[in-house]
């Protein structure tokens, strides 16, 4: 069974540009989470989808971030326009149960904004 996959693995962009990150959860997992780790800080929650609906988006830093999960399968996280402080590692996780007790993480996308 394939794990959670994320694309791209790395992205280097200039301030003001747009970047779109993609996450493919484990097949059949209705719950999809986005987290971010900024250098020197802990991993922080961004957003939680249940199927195609946003269950909790209280961790999204501002309106430059837009997450979608059309059809309840893969998800995208778009940052527009990117700022220097958006640099970090963006992780996606999925789980089958709604309690989130076993979350499977992807390898992350390393974003560097110059």
């Amino acid at each position, binding site marked *: 069974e394939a794990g959670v996959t994320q694309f791209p693995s790395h992205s280097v962009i200039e301030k003001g540009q747009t970047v779109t990150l993609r996450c493919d959860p484990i097949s059949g997992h209705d719950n999809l989470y986005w*987290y971010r780790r900024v250098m020197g800080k802990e991993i922080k929650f961004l957003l939680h989808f249940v199927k195609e609906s946003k269950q909790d988006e209280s961790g999204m830093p501002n309106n430059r971030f837009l997450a979608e999960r059309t059809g309840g399968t893969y998800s995208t996280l778009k940052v527009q326009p990117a700022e220097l402080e958006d640099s970090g590692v963006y992780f996606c996780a999925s789980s089958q149960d709604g309690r989130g007790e076993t979350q499977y993480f992807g390898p992350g996308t390393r974003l560097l904004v110059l």
Partner: protein
Amino acid sequence: SQKIEQNSEALNIQEGKTATLTCNYTNYSPAYLQWYRQDPGRGPVFLLLIRENEKEKRKERLKVTFDTTLKQSLFHITASQPADSATYLCAHPRNSGYSTLTFGKGTMLLVSP
């Protein structure tokens, strides 16, 4: 807000010894705590979950304790091996009824042959 504290200094031990990592949490009484392993360039990998009504849980060479009075969890790796070298993260639910997680910064473990 909830905060998880883990020793930021790397823990260096010799192969065969027991590694003990500490996780302290504040401002919240979580229903459970989780421990993850993270290798460089990889995402966290779930290891163990311990509930608030459990004092101790074991899985092979791993043991986790949960002290709700001290607001602390200890993570032990017995008979440690160089392959156990990684960063270990502690996490708990962000809030009661939520499935999203709050993480600590993690503690790096280095096991020398």
